[in-house]
């Protein structure tokens, strides 16, 4: 059986796993975005706070994914939960760091003017600072998403959902019928999905970043 025959044959299953994979990654990214932006907003004014937040997030990223999952499984058990928790933790670094960089990069004259003409603290943050930091935040989310596409494969080790299951079982069954096809189909799926999401990010940027600050 060729790879294409295999994909055609198992299309329903692969489509479902693909969908679960994307959904897991996207949800983790969104969760990490909410957390990362909150953390970024909380610390960006303080150089010490910024350094600590970025440092902690980097530390998480240095933990090998298998090790992190190994630590999380005893706490959350097997299934999607430890996988999602791991993904969110990994996504925090690019998003938090870019939020801090983006907010700190806002021209002080602009925030001064915003305050000076009578915007309250919250309005300055939501209507000016975050809007101006948005391209950076979005770039952080994009990097996070790409990273998570790969890490989510490994998270299948904790019986998380997604294409990781295909890759793992293909590899463990090496030598038997269609084992290579299964692993390849899973991997190919991850690559294709990553490219699709890249395209989605392009359109999100196009429609949410003001023309006044688009590069």
């Amino acid at each position, binding site marked *: 059986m060729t790879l294409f025959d295999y994909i055609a044959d198992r299309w329903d299953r692969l489509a479902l796993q693909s969908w679960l994979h994307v959904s897991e990654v996207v949800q983790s990214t969104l969760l990490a975005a909410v957390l990362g932006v909150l953390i970024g907003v909380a610390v960006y004014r303080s150089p010490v706070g910024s350094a600590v937040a970025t440092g902690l997030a980097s530390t998480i990223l240095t933990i090998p994914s298998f090790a992190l999952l190994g630590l999380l499984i005893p706490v959350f058990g097997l299934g999607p939960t430890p996988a999602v928790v791991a993904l969110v933790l990994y996504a925090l670094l690019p998003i938090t760091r870019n939020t801090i960089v983006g907010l700190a990069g806002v021209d002080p*004259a602009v925030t001064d003017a915003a305050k000076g003409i009578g915007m309250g603290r919250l309005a300055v943050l939501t209507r000016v600072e975050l809007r101006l930091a948005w391209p950076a935040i979005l770039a952080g989310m994009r990097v996070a998403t790409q990273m998570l596409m790969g890490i989510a494969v490994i998270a299948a080790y904790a019986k998380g959902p997604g294409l990781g299951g295909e890759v793992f079982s293909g590899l463990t069954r090496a030598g038997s019928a269609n084992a290579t096809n299964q692993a390849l189909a899973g991997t190919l799926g991850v690559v294709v999905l990553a490219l699709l999401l890249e395209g989605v990010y392009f359109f999100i940027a196009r429609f949410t970043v003001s023309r006044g600050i688009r590069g």
Partner: protein
Amino acid sequence: MTSDSTDSAVSGVEIQLEGVTKRYPGSAEPAVKDVTMTIPAGQIVVLVGPSGCGKTTTMRMINRLIEPTSGRITIGGEDALELDDVRLRRKIGYAIQQAGLFPHFTVAQNIAVVPGLLGWDKKRIAERVDELMDLVGLDASQFRDRYPRQLSGGQQQRVGVARALAADPPVLLMDEPFGAVDPITRGNLQDELLRLQADLGKTIVFVTHDFDEAVKLGDRIAVLGEASTIQQYDTPEAILANPANDMVAGFVGAGASLKQLTLLRVRDVDYPDLALTADVGESPSELRARLARAGDTYALLVDRRRRPQRWVHVRNLSAATSLANIGRPVGDTVSTQSTLQDALEAILAEGGRAVVTGTRGEYVGMIDIETVTGVLAQLREEHESAGDAGDAGDGVDGDGTDAADGDGHGGDAGRAGVARGDAARDGAGRADGGVDGDAGAAADSGAGTS
């Protein structure tokens, strides 16, 4: 200048600072120390002083971007420190050096921010945006939907001023708003601010470290020293004529007298009608006779509309058969609208005296270097004796125009009696040409046409 803004409707309110002090945390010396000043309603008050003296800090305490450590600030009688600071700022226009426009908003959205915060409805905001763009000299249809990065620095500053004026606040704070543009654009922006202010009558606190800008814009100038201590707070005329101390003198810098000359216009001074004028159609011998009678050696040739053309010396006349092509062209002339500084420039270029022309370019008199030095001496005297110099202009605002309109010279005496005013003079000029230099006839026909 002072009279310009008092003529207009005053929409501004008075601002008072009483013993205002600001001490930044962690610094031993206060950045602003015990400043007391009254900023009169509807006037432009310029804060000038060396870098770091506390101008910005002083200004930002008025809209409470910086909270004073102690002291009292009232705006239109209301205690600013009692009000909600965000609401307070919506009633105070704010424009800064880098313009600080929101890069992700269009020009229209930038201007609309404060009206939006105040809850105006969409239609009213849209109308206001167009009105303001017009006011600051930007074509709304062309610029409304542009983003700040698509504007030049000068255009950005205009939008900054429009945004500051959007909700028609009585008070405007401007911190070096024209600091980052080239001198020509700066000059234009300054002119426009003065024009706006003549209509709006806001109370404007303007910070700069450019003393010339202060002289040009200020109804009053506060020269600030270390920690914003007020060195002198007076009209530009008074400060130029009589700096209160060495620090002010140093800040005024070299050329105080020259700067004073920028505040005065030729129409404010006496410029005598010294030149003997002759129409180009007059015969050389006739002109020579007139010069001899007047005891003069030079005559000013004018065209049919009495616009100055050339100078002729009596010596050129003996050989000449017509006045058409002899003499030396008149170089720089000054108009009655020119500043005395421009006049001085022309006087120096022309070698001692310059021709003054009226609104339509016609000869009205001569201004020389003694006139200019006399005005300066008079100003200095007034400010030294009076101390208060709110109305420096009046002292020299003599009857210069009358002098120009009035009596001419012997040869032309007939015309002096004809009438005052441009129409009569014009008529006389035309007649002069027509009757070939007969002064009496010219006077008659001049009288006839007036």
